[in-house]
């Protein structure tokens, strides 16, 4: 075991920090520390242009293999990139779903033609993606998908009808990957397929969902005979579940280290307030702040262990704890922030319902324990896959 970075890696860290310092300025300065979870609707157009600046710096797909157009960074260097990006206040990534989820999925399961068609516009910051998994009747029970895709022989295309929900940034996206039932009458995870669908077409309607924060980052997406070419299916008909699950596996990667740097920024603000308003003298608050501080370090150590074990991209059983660990920690930070603020926590930044950063944190963390598999589902996964306990009926 070795917790230091090599001299070459430290040099790389300097390089990233300098690049960020040079480029996150001018018109992009307003993006610093913005656009993260709970703030995803902030300045989408400007953030798309920022993605293109990142792309020009070859930072989009920095962890992808060189033959896929990426930079081929080592795990350590990816860790460093995400840390320095977040430390510099790099904004929430509009391109995350393309770069982090669908890109690696197409690289792993797509045909050479599909890779040629879809990967370059992700790497250049041109195409933005959203995710079409959850439905009103398919949340924790994701396999209960009702959205149908029928093959139109004449047009050599799929016709998609149904409804997706909790789709982040759907109104800002060019493409959506859709998990749809292509085998009529099938149930559960059989008969599903993985389709890439252009958003700008008559058969698709996007309707924002107002959240308890008052803002709208999630959407409902209605498909009414929406079309996509036969060439836009990843894998074969019926492979959808396997590919959908593989995609979720790409989600727990090195970007977790960047997420933690964001958490550190939030915690720093809580500490700063505690120092100025006297909470830092309260023994109970001191205990809770120290607990949050050490808990964040443990999240980092968990991630470093998780990434150190990755040789072939497959995560070990210990990795199943990750979502439960960070979401539980973050919810507590949100509560702590309010308690440190005291009565001040009640006062909004403005009417009618403009939240301060920490109010947004407090409210939005209630989504952390839900999306991407609720904490209850995470506990099932840990118990069954890591501890080998009997499975729930499915």
């Amino acid at each position, binding site marked *: 075991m070795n917790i*230091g970075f090599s001299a070459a890696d430290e040099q790389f860290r300097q390089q990233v920090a300098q690049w960020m310092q040079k480029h996150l300025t001018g018109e992009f300065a307003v993006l610093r520390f913005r656009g993260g979870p709970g703030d995803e609707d902030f300045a989408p157009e400007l953030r798309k242009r920022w993605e293109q600046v990142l792309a020009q710096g070859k930072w989009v797909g920095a962890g992808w293999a060189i033959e896929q157009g990426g930079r081929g960074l080592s795990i350590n260097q990816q860790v460093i990139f995400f840390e320095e990006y977040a430390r510099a206040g790099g904004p929430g990534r509009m391109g995350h779903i393309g770069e982090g989820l669908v890109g690696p999925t197409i690289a792993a399961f797509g045909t050479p033609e599909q890779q040629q068609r879809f990967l370059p516009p992700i790497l250049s910051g041109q195409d933005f993606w959203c995710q079409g998994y959850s439905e009103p009747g398919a949340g924790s029970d994701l396999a209960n998908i009702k959205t149908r895709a029928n093959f139109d022989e004449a047009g050599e295309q799929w016709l998609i009808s149904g409804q997706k929900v909790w789709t982040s940034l759907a109104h800002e996206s060019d493409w959506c990957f859709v998990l749809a039932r292509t085998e009529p009458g099938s149930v559960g995870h059989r008969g599903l397929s993985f389709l890439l669908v252009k958003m700008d077409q008559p058969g698709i309607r996007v309707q924002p969902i107002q959240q308890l924060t008052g803002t709208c980052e999630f959407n409902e997406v209605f498909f009414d005979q929406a079309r996509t070419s036969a060439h836009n299916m990843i894998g074969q008909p019926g492979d959808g579940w396997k590919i959908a699950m593989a995609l979720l596996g790409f989600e727990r990667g090195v970007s977790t280290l960047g997420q933690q740097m964001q958490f550190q920024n939030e915690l720093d603000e809580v500490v700063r307030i505690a120092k100025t308003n006297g909470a830092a003298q309260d023994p109970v608050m001191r205990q809770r702040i120290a607990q949050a501080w050490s808990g964040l370090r443990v999240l980092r150590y968990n991630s470093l262990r998780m990434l150190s074990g990755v040789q072939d991209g497959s995560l070990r059983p210990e990795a199943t704890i990750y979502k439960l660990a960070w979401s539980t920690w973050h919810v507590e930070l949100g509560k702590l922030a309010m308690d440190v603020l005291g009565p001040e926590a009640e006062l909004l930044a403005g009417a009618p319902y403009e939240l301060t950063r920490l109010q947004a944190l407090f409210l939005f963390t209630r989504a952390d324990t839900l999306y991407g598999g609720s904490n209850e589902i*995470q506990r099932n996964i840990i118990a069954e896959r890591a501890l080998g306990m009997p499975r729930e009926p499915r």
Partner: protein
Amino acid sequence: MELALTDEQRMIQASAERFLTQVASSSAVRTAMSSERGYDTQTWRQIAKELYWPALAIPEAYGGLGLGFVEVCLLQEQLGRCLLPTPFFATCCLATPALLLSSNESLKERWLPLIAAGEISASVAYTSAPRWDDSGVQVYAQSHEGGYRLNGEYRYVIDGADCDLLIIAARTPGSIGEAGIRLFALPADTPGLLRQPQATLDQTRRLATITLNNVAVNDEHLLSEPGQGWPMLRDVLHIACIGLAGEQTGGAQQSLDITLKYIGEREQFGRRIASFQAIKHRCADLMLAIECSRSASYYAACIADQCLNIDGDPSTRQQLGEAAATAKIFASEGFFQCAAESIQLHGGVGFTWEYDPHLYFKRARASEQMLGTPAFHREQLAKQIFGERT
């Protein structure tokens, strides 16, 4: 950066596990804990003289194997799993680090080879108060004819009644806080040094009360440089916290493992109780606690390793306090949670003397207190977070 075990470390871990499976069954542990000395001397002999565990982290120049503290923590984890009583923790996580951090070459040359050879066990005595910081140092070193006379009493000295070497903290009369502290290394049979074993709630680890009546020592016994007594003792305690965190991680893991085995067999309402979601979710929370404990203790072990290594990275050394506190907090609370849940999930039999959960529960409680409670360590971190001391 690679926070994963090397092949060699994995081998050490696996061979320790194999050995302990043979010698540290539940009945062997119970026999040892009820014996007069509190541990099985034959097994300790094997550990110390045939497996060379105490030699692991001692440099070759002092007769050791020249490996590091990460390896010590891996052994601690395995010892924690089976609760085998041995003087390993006191000798290798308290006394050996104190000797390694000392610049008194003649003391190092005298004692380290004996520890490495498995000839002696050792411990550190430094507190008379229910606190685990400088205020606990209440033995006084009065200057006397070119040397010192030590007077006072220490409690809670781990394996203190049976060890051969004692490292004793003492302060200059009239001094308070971090000032005036010195560390002395002296044979446990030094005249005037009385050792009284205490019956303990956790029977798997013995504590002693040590009384010093005009114990004559001089600079030859002095481990610490002038003015460096407290910084040295503080580093030793931090390193010991990290070793203890490794042990607590092992205890937590075993608490969960024996529970999973039991609930995988126990049937009620016509089904294995492990199939109830109410139980699965609690076990998932235990695994979360254990992995956090393990991550924190592995990371901290790497830092301790740098601190004990002459060529260690200075910036890494500065993280010792925070890494030790973090490991001790998560390992203490994780172990206690796992051990308490183990009793609950075993149901009625978990409350019996015959089943093992109570042994882990008692060890968890003792270890949570030892070297500072989680609340104590959080307060230390709070001071750092708010910049109240450097």
